[in-house]
């Protein structure tokens, strides 16, 4: 029997109540929000339940929303995939801007290990309980988190570029 989104929603709400909310169907993927302290419980439930069976973590990434209010500045997005019934689901979990931290899921899905390191490297989100949370793509000595919106894309230390020829102003480079 195919798994449909009302079943998923009902099961999740029945087990977690207020911690799961904002269920939407966006462009053929069913997405929901989860409170950040319940994320490991929700993912474990999605993986182990006999009807839900979301056995594969497709993707894990972070997004920075500097315009949002303080407790919703960062979000960690999880894409899960149920291979048996061929259903995808997207889970977003908002965390605070001043002290972004969330529990790791690398003990539930082994592939989350490096994906969380990458998210830490880019955004500075602390994954509590991660076995080896250090930078993975950038240089180890880097102190800032480059994917945050306030960090510039280009290297500010260059002396050989004349901004007049590139139409650059302070806010667009």
């Amino acid at each position, binding site marked *: 029997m195919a798994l449909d989104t009302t079943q998923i929603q009902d099961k999740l709400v029945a087990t977690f109540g207020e911690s799961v909310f904002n269920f939407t169907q966006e*462009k053929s993927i069913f997405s929901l929000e989860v409170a950040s302290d319940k994320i490991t419980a929700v993912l474990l439930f999605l993986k182990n339940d006999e009807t839900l069976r979301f056995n594969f973590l497709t*993707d894990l990434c972070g*997004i920075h929303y500097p315009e949002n209010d303080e407790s919703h500045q960062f979000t960690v*997005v999880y894409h899960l995939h149920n291979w048996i019934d061929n259903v995808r689901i997207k889970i977003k979990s908002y965390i605070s801007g001043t002290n972004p931290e969330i529990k790791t899921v690398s003990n539930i899905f*082994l*592939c989350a290990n490096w994906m969380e390191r990458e998210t830490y490297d880019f955004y500075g989100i602390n994954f509590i309980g991660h076995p080896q949370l250090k930078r993975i*793509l950038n240089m180890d000595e880097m102190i800032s988190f480059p994917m945050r919106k306030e960090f510039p*894309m280009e290297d500010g230390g260059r002396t050989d570029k004349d901004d007049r020829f590139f139409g650059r102003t302070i806010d667009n480079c």
Partner: protein
Amino acid sequence: MSELLLPPEHRYAEIIKKRQNEDGSELSILNLGPTHPATHGIFQNILLMDGERILEAEPTIGYIHRAFEKIAENRPFYQITPLTDRMNYCSSPINNMAWWMTLEKLLDIEVPKRAQYLRVIVMELARITDHLICNSILGVDTGAYTGFLYVFQFREKVYEIYEEICGARLTTNMGRIGGFERDWSPEAFRKLDVFLEEFPVAWKEFENLFERNRIFIDRTVNVGPISAEKAMAYGFTGPNLRAAGVDYDVRVAQPYSSYEDFDFIVPVGKSGDTYDRFCVRNAEVWESISIIKQALAKMPAGNDFHADVPAYYLPPKEDVYHDMESLIYHFKIVMGEVPVPVSEVYHAVEGGNGELGFYLVTDGSRTPYRLHFRRPCFIYYQAYPEMIKGALLSDAIVILSSLNVIAGELDA
């Protein structure tokens, strides 16, 4: 120069001090450094070795981190295609088409059947070239240089086909939102026919060189096996996962661009070792040849090669110079005056290495708010230290080649 040496308080230095073998020999550290003839791309592995056996490995990546995701937040949609080219540069058309399909999903654009079939042809050609490089380099790493030279000639033929379609050899930057930028010339189809005649003969020769070759079998059977459960836990997709026995293929699970019209099998291995990965890729090349032949046979008549979406499809330059409407649309598209919905979309395709996904978050402006690439190489390379535990050093090299890790996709 000394800052590149291992610090004395490193974990491995302590293990070496603590443990002494019975015959008086010590453990040693070997740096399979970022520049190495056999690592195809730059990534480093610091190995703790007991003689020739590897006990532990510590990988370091990021030596070619080019900040694609940051660049993508500052570029309009059609300027992101060159970035996608340079991720898995052995099969760039697949990345290009995946990006266009993500945008078409976002904007709800329906691509005409003929353009979809053309996309399938070019994606399968790219898959052939990707597997061609991977398997021939695996041969080179076991000492068989001839296979590489023979097979690379056909990669040149595919480059000529790409040049007829889009003008570039390797980093193709092919396509537009809704299809292609120009129709394929008759010369492209002629070259494709010649390729489909000559390549299967050469590929059969290549397979014969390796599949029953005693030396190759000794080097690759039971080397670096991985079980299906471990592979799924580590996020493997693509030929590496199929070699372990799981038949997950994005083209079958969630068909895109008319893949459901074609009849192909998904080859699956048994034990997930290097030999199985090699054979799965070989079999996939045969399936790709069959898909291309089916697409050519079933190609819809006519010559529409793009969807009728003037608001998003850049008009041909000749029209821009003569036709007022084209000029206006060109201006609007380039300056970002076209309506872009505020939405999130995730689209996955079957790349040469597995599920290549694009997660796009838009905010209505002409550049993405966030674009994340789900890169298969990055995810399955995590399993490499575990796969080489207990193996010999030369096996570690062969395992790395068979995984087909492409540095551009690893670091992005």
